[in-house]
C-alpha cells in the first residue's frame, strides 16, 4: 500500500473515501459494520475493544475472591450480581469487536497466551473486605468516566455496548460507595480498614486512565476519528475533582502529600504518578499478573469438556 507501485487511481479513491469518512464523523454519524472505514480505525478499535473485553473478564477475579467471605447474605448477593455483570460486559464487548472482523477464538487465544493487554488495576490483590467497597467506588467510577465518553464514540456497536454497560456500572459504583460510607461511619477499626484500602488502591486507580497525554501516541488519531472525546489527563482530573471532596467529607484521605486545591482552576492538583510502577505492571511484573493468567488458563482448560459435550450434543441433533 505504501510501496512505489501504488495505483494512482486507487490512491485518489482512498483519499476520497477517507474525506467522506471524516465528514461523517464530523457530522456526528455513527459508523456501522459494512461502512467503509480506514484500516487504522478498524485496528485501533479492535485493539481498544478487545483490551476492554479482557479487562471485564479478568476483572471478575479480584472481587470474585470475596464472594465466599462476604460479611452478610445481602452483600454476597450484591457481589455475585456484580461479578455476573462483569462477565456479561465482557460478552457485549467481544461481540462489538467481532463486528469489526476479530474472531472470538483469536481474542481468547491472545489473552491466554499472554499477548493481549488488560487493565493493570486487576493485577493488584484484594486484601480485606473493604477492598470490594473501594474497587466499586473508585475503580468502577473511573471506568464509568471513561465509558460514558465511549458511549458517544463514532463506532455504533461499541457505543451501544457502552450505553448498556454504563447503566449497569452505576450499580457497581453505588454498591461500593455504600460499603465505603458504612465502614467510614463504623468503629475506629473499620475506618482504619477502609483507609488502608484507599491507600493501596488510590494510585493504581489514577493509573487506570493511562499515560499522560504527552506519552499517549494513540490519542490524537482516536480523537480525530471520534473514538475518544476526552484525553487521559482530562478524565483523570475529572475523577480526582469529584472523588477527593467526597472522601474528605467521609473523614478519609488520599495518600498524596502533594494534593492541593487550586482556586484559580478549581482543580485538585495531585502529585506525580509512579510511571515506573505503571509500566512494570503493564509488562507483567505486577503483584498478581501471574496468578490472574493462571486462573484464566485453568478456567479455559477446565471448561474444555463442557464445550466438547455441547458440540457432541449439537452434532447429534443435526
Amino acid at each position, binding site marked *: 500500500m505504501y510501496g512505489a507501485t501504488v495505483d494512482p487511481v486507487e490512491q485518489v479513491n482512498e483519499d476520497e473515501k477517507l474525506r467522506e469518512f471524516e465528514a461523517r464523523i464530523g457530522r456526528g454519524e455513527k459508523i456501522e459494520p459494512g461502512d467503509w472505514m480506514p484500516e487504522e480505525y478498524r485496528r485501533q478499535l479492535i485493539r481498544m475493544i478487545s483490551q476492554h473485553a479482557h479487562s471485564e473478564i479478568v476483572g471478575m477475579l479480584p472481587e470474585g475472591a470475596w464472594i465466599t467471605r462476604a460479611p452478610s447474605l445481602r452483600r454476597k448477593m450484591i457481589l455475585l450480581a456484580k461479578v455476573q455483570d462483569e462477565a456479561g460486559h465482557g460478552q*457485549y464487548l467481544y461481540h462489538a469487536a467481532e463486528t469489526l472482523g476479530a474472531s472470538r*477464538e483469536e481474542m481468547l487465544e491472545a489473552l491466554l497466551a499472554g499477548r493481549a493487554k488488560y487493565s493493570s488495576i486487576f493485577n493488584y490483590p484484594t486484601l480485606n473486605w473493604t477492598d470490594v467497597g473501594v474497587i466499586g467506588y473508585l475503580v468502577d467510577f473511573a471506568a464509568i468516566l471513561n465509558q460514558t465518553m465511549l458511549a458517544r464514540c463514532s463506532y455504533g*456497536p461499541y457505543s451501544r455496548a457502552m450505553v448498556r454497560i454504563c447503566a449497569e456500572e452505576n450499580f457497581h459504583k*453505588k454498591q461500593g460507595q*455504600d460499603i465505603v460510607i458504612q465502614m467510614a*461511619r463504623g468503629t475506629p477499626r473499620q475506618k482504619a480498614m477502609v483507609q488502608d484500602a484507599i491507600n493501596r488502591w488510590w494510585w493504581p486507580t489514577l493509573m487506570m486512565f493511562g499515560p499522560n497525554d504527552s506519552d499517549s501516541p494513540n490519542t490524537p488519531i482516536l480523537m480525530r476519528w471520534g473514538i475518544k472525546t476526552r484525553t487521559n489527563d482530562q478524565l483523570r482530573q475529572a475523577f480526582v475533582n469529584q472523588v477527593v471532596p*467526597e472522601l474528605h467529607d467521609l473523614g478519609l484521605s488520599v495518600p498524596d502529600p502533594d494534593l492541593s486545591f487550586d482556586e484559580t482552576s478549581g482543580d485538585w492538583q495531585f502529585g506525580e504518578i509512579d510511571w515506573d510502577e505503571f509500566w512494570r505492571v503493564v509488562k507483567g511484573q505486577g503483584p498478581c499478573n501471574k496468578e490472574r493468567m493462571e486462573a484464566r488458563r485453568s478456567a479455559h482448560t477446565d471448561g474444555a469438556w463442557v464445550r466438547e459435550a*455441547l458440540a457432541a450434543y449439537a452434532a447429534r441433533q443435526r
Partner: protein
Amino acid sequence: MNDTQLPRFQVFLQEQEGQPHQDVGSVHASDAEMALQNARDVFVRRPECTSLWVVPAEAIYSRTAEELAKEGGEKKEAGGEGAENPGLSGETEIYCVFSKAKSAGTQTLVGEVQATSPAEALGEGIARFAGGKAPFAWWVFPARLITRSQPQDIESMFLPALDKPFRLSTDFHTQTAMREIRDRKP
C-alpha cells in the same frame, strides 16, 4: 487452544409487550436452544424483557445506507453477508425487516415482507418501511430461522430478575447518605 467458541447467534430483545424487538448483540452457542439460554444470562440480568429471539448470525442479510448507495443501479443479486444463507429455499416466505432509523439508534423491527430471497426482501422492505426518513442501515432474515422464548418461559426466564432490586443503582441511597454527612459537619 484452537478449539471453537461455537457459532454466533444475533439476539433481539423486546422490553415491553407491544414494543418492537431490538438488536442487543450476539452470543455464541452450540445450538439455538443454548443460544436462547445464553442470551437470557447475558442480556436479561435486570427486569426489562418480555421476549427474546435468537437468529443464526450468518443468516442476517445486512446493508448500510452507504453500501446501498454504492450498489445503486447495479441491480445486484444477493451478495455479501447473508448470501450463503443456510437452507435458503428460493420459495416465497416471510422475512423480518429491521432498520436503524437514527444515527445513534439500534436495529429495530419495522415489519415483515414476503419474498423469495434476502435481496428481494430488502428491496420490498425499503419500499414499504423507509417512509420519508432514510434509515442508516437495514437487516433482513427469514422469520423461519428465529428461535423465540415462549409466553410460558416468562416466569422462569425473566421474572426472577424482579426479585433482585439490589441489581439496580436506585437501591443504594448513597447521595442521601453523603448529604446527611455534609449537613452534620460544622
